[in-house]
């Protein structure tokens, strides 16, 4: 299996550099709205009251629901990446409804559907992340380690994992 994006929310600092580099790489323009990766910072009612940053992007699902609903056949799987053919896309937004993670978006500034296609095999967000929260590597089942800064030492790691569980649950309920 080829490389995948791995996101470690515990390491995310919430600087949103990934959003801008993604948009710059793919749209030749820095705009958070044009980004295929988005950071949500939970700031209230979190476990222990501490903020929590959650970067989300397309998981390139093996059995992708968006593929099945597209009436124009604009979404196609090519090896491990789900590609969107903008020539075919009519903007009907069925894929947005079908996506279980809410990571396919209609962008109002660019008037089109945006979704992550892994920047043709070299995702720009990986290099820009200052804390190593976004990795691009072949899947392994060991716990991934931070690329550069090691925040774990200074962070209540357990509390953060608990916070994540609760937040993910609340996000699902919404």
């Amino acid at each position: 299996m080829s490389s995948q994006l791995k996101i470690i929310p515990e390491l995310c600092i919430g600087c949103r550099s990934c959003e801008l580099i993604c948009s710059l790489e793919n749209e030749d323009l820095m705009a958070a709205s044009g980004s295929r990766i988005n950071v949500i910072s939970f700031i209230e009612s979190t476990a222990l009251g501490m903020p929590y940053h959650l970067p989300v992007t397309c998981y390139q699902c093996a059995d992708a629901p968006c593929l099945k609903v597209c009436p124009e056949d604009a979404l196609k799987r090519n090896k491990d990446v789900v590609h969107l053919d903008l020539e075919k896309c009519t903007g009907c937004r069925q894929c947005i409804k079908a996506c279980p993670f809410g990571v396919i978006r209609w962008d109002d500034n660019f008037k089109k559907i945006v979704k992550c296609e892994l920047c043709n095999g070299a995702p720009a967000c990986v290099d820009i992340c200052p804390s190593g929260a976004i990795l691009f590597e072949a899947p392994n089942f060991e716990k991934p380690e931070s690329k550069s800064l090691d925040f774990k030492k200074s962070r209540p790691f357990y509390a953060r994992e608990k916070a994540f569980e609760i937040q993910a649950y609340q996000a699902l309920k919404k």
Partner: protein
Amino acid sequence: MNEAFPAGGYHKKLLRINLTTGMIQSEEIPVEVLKSYIGGTGLGIYLLYSQVPTGALPLGPENNLIFATGPFTGSLVPGSGTYSVMCKSPLTGYAASAQANGFFGARLKAAGFDALVVQGCSEEKVYLYIDSNTAVLKSSEFLNNKGAFETDKKLRARHNEKGYEQKISIACIGPAGENQVRFAAISSDRGHMAASGGVGAVMGSKNLKAIVISGDGPIPTAPGKKNEIKKEIFRWREESNASGLGKTVHEKGTLGLFKPYHDKGWVPVKNMTTNQLPEDTLAKFDWEYIQNEVYEKVPRACHTCTFTHCHTVRVKKGPSKGFIGEEIEYEILAGYGSNWGISDPGTITMLNGFIDDLGMDAKEVSFLISMLMEGRQKGLIGKDDLDGIDLTWGDVDAVKQLLEKISLRKGMGDVLADGVARTVKALGKEFDKIGVYVKQGNAPHVHDSRTRWGTLFTQIISNTTSQEGMDMTGRGNPELGITKPTADPDRYLAEVQTKTGPKRQFEECLAFCYFQACSLKQMVQTLNVITGADFSAESCLKIGERVINLLRMYNIREGLSMEDDSYSHRLGQSPTDGPGKGKSLNSTFNEVRQAYYEMMGWDNRGVPTAETLERLNLTFSHIEKVR
């Protein structure tokens, strides 16, 4: 200058909000202005000089409140969420320039504007909502006298980001701003304070409680330069990460500075009556102890931060156990800790949150309270003079009670709410001997700057109510031609100020986080790539010099004289102990000040000469035209 400017970096648009008439309109910013002043503080002082009438009352409807961003704001440049607030300061009566980081600046830019100009005064209390399509004023009655954090929470919930943050930023004032406390701050993104010069009081005087911005639109950059822009940004990141702060700040914060500063005698203790702390207190102010033992922390970075300076912390021990707030900085530790005789870092963290919530400037609060504490100790003021509050060294409850009174201007708080310099006048007695302020009328940053010459001098002659240049005490800067540390307060001090001032003010025009700074060369290269301009290092320093001179001309227009380039009695006293014992700026100050005027091309009263103004293209013809 080539024709292409500006190919990027600007929307060339400002939003003018007239609160008296309720009219909101978008205006074009002339390219000529952007070329000459770049943005941020430069754009701000241009707008202030040209659009606020001479002699306008700082807290009256004629004063304007200007939020200005720079060409980098909102882009990938490290720390580019910064914005500059400018207005006529209610503290000094001269120009105020305050900056805050976070996301507010970036989102203002993403909503499609380079600057906001708020003028007039609303009849009822309102807040302003802006996104890329709309700008509306809404009633803020439900937020009256609410703290800055609660205001953020409630407005966020109203605008569809309940409990989380994705594209909304809020800049607001707390009760201090609403009640026009002269050192009130503007708080953005929950705890990032634009504090200097009392900008929050001006916002309060306009009955504007908050500005809510929803922005995730495009940040203009020169088209087709994707790879160049990426290259410059990665270079900048490397440089800033290799700098002294870049290597340590994610771990130590600025708290790592406390011990070295203390060893040099730069930490104010009990209103500068000494600068030496007892060993046991010093051990509690150690960064390792605070970061590991006192609280646990999680990162809450600003826009495009590259090394996580800011964290949210939860106090683990002591009387404030369980308090959740912002990580404290060196200046807070010194200001609310050593300067007030408080030694528990957890309590200082709590006070930091408390004062941010009221919305006040830390440096003014610190020296105001410490002055009263010293006055109490010396019998200059009694318990009854402070409405029954027994303000002794280290009394946290008394401090909180008094600050709450100040923020509401109740009882004695009404007098104290005018800041250190005015309080000295109001209380009389010996207070002029113990008050810490520069003669323009604002408190300096929280250092014992009596022997930290660079920091002291740059604030004495500052035209911004804060530091105008950079302190090069103890380190040089080859790029600016500063080769030796300023060990003594001699003529060299003036030279250092002349060289660092333009660079610092140029940086303030670009508007990015000071901590993420890189070399001037890298800054100029990035500016050229993003805007398609062809600036050189010299032309950029000239812009900085132009900004200083325009600030100076504005202040002179509003009545500044060379007597204002001075400092209070306490700041001239020699420290009674510590490494700086016996030293003082007093003996050489007049000479240094004259040397500085001369080097800046000003006359011997500190007024820019006609030649200097002409050299900097400050002929005022274009300014007169706009007015």
